[in-house]
């Protein structure tokens, strides 16, 4: 039996100019794993939300959706709550209660089950998910990955037949994301739950999916098995190809360089293991020439622009030390990336370097001087792009946001962002920043209406209007799709080429390897290894798991 049948679904938001969904027709069989992907704004979330009545957005809708043979409109709310599970993107906001056991029981309470029934089901699910050890904890004490698992468990407790997931791992670090996807696959295998999920990070789900649906601007572009989808995208030379897993992209690039015709066998590897096997077989067939990697010029032992000398930090008097004798040097014009697992202290060290937090022991030197003196020396300005760009938004439209930043600096000499010699007017500076961050067509929109990648660029524009010498980025690639990641990388390269020092903290090793001059691995409150990306990736083995 089919879980879902969608027939000619067309939808426009009530104040939208164009159609968000155009004539979508698809069938999802019971027990299938389907991955829905596409660029931000292509309509994947809108489509997913149409599969459950209580989450449907307001607007003009045509066409029909059938759930297990019945028209979705006619399925009552009780059945829908039980049978259709929906996991949203943000792990924090989905949690309703303050205790884990209560969260698990929430859905069943609403459905009116008896105490005994609730107790049994909660016990079963908690055991399946391995939640027993944190069953009595407060929900505010859980990590992001645990919260998302809790959300999943509290939905599975109601024993749904279909699970809809809207970018469930975008706010999670790679290891938690991996665990989450593994659990979802396990659910499909053991319970036969139909899974329909939207994702940007396709490395994990692609090998396990039965079918992949690629959407573009409201209609379905490709609908096929993962392997065939890769082949079709490659043939179309579509920009979505960049979102596919690394092994597929490497295979495609090699294919293109050797100019294999498209009729030859497409034995594309999807997982890293398959990729390795293919590469080994490939190497045997062809002759290879060793390329000497361009060595970077040794930086003169100039004064580092940021120096941390044995800094110690903890959040509370009785808490543990988060940073233990951390020493770090960043040179002017360098792009430094801090990588490491969750909770190791990377964001804290960013706070120390930018002056937001103060260590209780040790020194923080900016250009050789400590903070108070550096503040008087107006040449060194620091700007921090926070993890959540929404914490910087105060106004109704994007151009008002940018104006607000300019207002506060009217007394200063306004100079060109990329060349402090040239003096510019306020309008010219704001134009320059808008051009760098590519915000031209977003200026009249409300910041909260933008996608994740767009919001981040607006926040970056605000920070750049500070005209900082040093830019700090906290997890810039969190929840961003491949297309925006590339745009962001392009912006960073532009800034780097003009001499801006950039320090970023990230889980995304691929991004750091592509754009950073130096990577430092963070562990247990200190940096354990520091090297250029090429050397760094060769030295560290386990970190390859962190490639997002």
């Amino acid at each position, binding site marked *: 039996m089919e879980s879902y049948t969608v027939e000619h679904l067309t939808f426009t938001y009530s104040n939208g100019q164009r159609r968000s969904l155009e004539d979508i027709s698809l069938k999802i069989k019971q027990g299938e794993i389907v991955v829905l992907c596409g660029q931000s704004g292509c309509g994947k979330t809108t489509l997913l939300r149409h599969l459950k009545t*209580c*989450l449907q957005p307001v607007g003009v809708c045509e066409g029909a959706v059938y759930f297990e043979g019945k028209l979705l409109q006619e399925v009552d*709310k*009780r059945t829908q*709550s039980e049978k259709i*599970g929906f996991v*949203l993107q*943000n792990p*924090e*906001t*989905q*949690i*309703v*209660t*303050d205790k884990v056991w*209560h969260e698990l*029981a*929430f*859905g*069943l*309470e*609403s*459905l*009116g*089950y*008896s*105490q005994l029934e*609730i*107790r049994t089901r*909660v016990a079963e699910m908690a055991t399946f998910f391995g939640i027993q050890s944190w069953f009595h904890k407060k929900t*505010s004490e859980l990590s992001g990955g645990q919260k998302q698992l809790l*959300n999943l468990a*509290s*939905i599975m407790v*109601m024993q749904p037949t279909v699970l809809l997931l809207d970018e469930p791992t975008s706010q999670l670090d790679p290891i938690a994301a991996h665990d989450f996807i593994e659990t979802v696959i396990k659910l499909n295998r053991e319970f036969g739950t139909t899974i329909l999920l939207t994702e940007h990070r396709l490395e994990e789900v692609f090998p396990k999916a039965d079918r992949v649906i690629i959407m573009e601007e409201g209609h379905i572009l490709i609908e096929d098995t993962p392997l065939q989808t890769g082949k079709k995208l490659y043939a179309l030379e579509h920009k979505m190809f960049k979102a596919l897993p690394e092994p597929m992209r490497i295979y495609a690039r090699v294919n293109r360089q050797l100019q294999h015709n498209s009729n030859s066998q497409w034995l594309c590897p999807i997982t890293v293991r398959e990729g390795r096997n293919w590469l080994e077989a490939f190497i045997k067939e062809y002759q290879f020439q060793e390329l000497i990697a361009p060595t970077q010029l040794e930086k003169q032992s100039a004064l580092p622009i940021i120096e941390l000398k044995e800094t110690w930090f903890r959040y509370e*008097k009785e808490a543990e030390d988060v940073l233990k004798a951390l020493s770090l040097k960043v040179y002017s014009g360098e792009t430094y990336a801090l990588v490491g697992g969750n909770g190791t202290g990377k964001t804290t060290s960013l706070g120390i370097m*930018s002056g*937001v*937090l*103060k260590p*209780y022991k040790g020194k923080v030197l900016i250009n050789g001087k400590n*903070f108070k003196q550096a503040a008087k020396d107006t040449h060194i*300005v*620091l*700007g*921090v*792009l*926070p993890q*959540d760009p*929404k*914490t*910087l*938004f*105060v106004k109704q439209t994007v151009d008002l946001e940018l104006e607000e*930043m300019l207002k*506060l600096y009217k007394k200063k000499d306004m100079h060109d962002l990329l060349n402090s010699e040239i003096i510019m007017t306020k309008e010219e500076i704001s134009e320059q920043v808008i051009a760098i961050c590519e915000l031209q067509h977003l200026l009249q929109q409300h910041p*909260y209406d933008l996608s994740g990648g767009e919001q981040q660029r607006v926040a970056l524009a605000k*920070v750049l209007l*500070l005209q900082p010498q040093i830019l*700090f980025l906290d997890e810039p690639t969190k929840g961003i799709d491949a297309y925006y990641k590339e745009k962001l990388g392009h912006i960073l390269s532009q800034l780097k080429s003009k001499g801006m020092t950039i320090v970023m903290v990230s889980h995304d090793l691929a991004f750091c390897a592509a754009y950073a001059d130096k990577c430092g691995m963070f562990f247990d409150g200190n940096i354990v290894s520091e090297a250029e990306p090429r050397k760094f990736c060769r030295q560290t083995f386990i970190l390859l798991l962190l490639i997002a």
Partner: protein
Amino acid sequence: MILGFVPKFKRQLKAISKAQSGIGHSLSKGNILQRIGQGMSILSILITLVLEESVQTADSMQSRGYGLKGRTAFSIFIFTKRDWAVLSYMMSLVVYIGTGIFRGSMYYSYFPILMGSKISIYSLSVWGAYFLLGLVPVMLEIWEEKQWKVTQSNI
């Protein structure tokens, strides 16, 4: 649910003030007018963020059937036989005492006499010294807190 709001608010507030001080709008800089303005903008960001989040929480609740008729409440505690026994024991005692108070059999009177040395400057000073002696641990705690606050002082 409501209990969860306080830590949520606190957490968001911290994140927002950190983000704002990262772009130079620190709460501890500038004259009093600037600081009030900054405080207001932090508050407005907080309210907007919390409102946005509450929409998502509402979606999550709706999706799990909140609002349906016939809602039960789950309790992690089970009421055992022993609980019943203790409850009935305590209730019977309370009822008996209640009737006793009502009938006046709990009336008791106490009239103590307090005697002390004459109040003079000298005796007051001794009392004062005793007070200061008792406060020594309090003063040490305050001193330590101040030391910690100084090293944690905002920029």
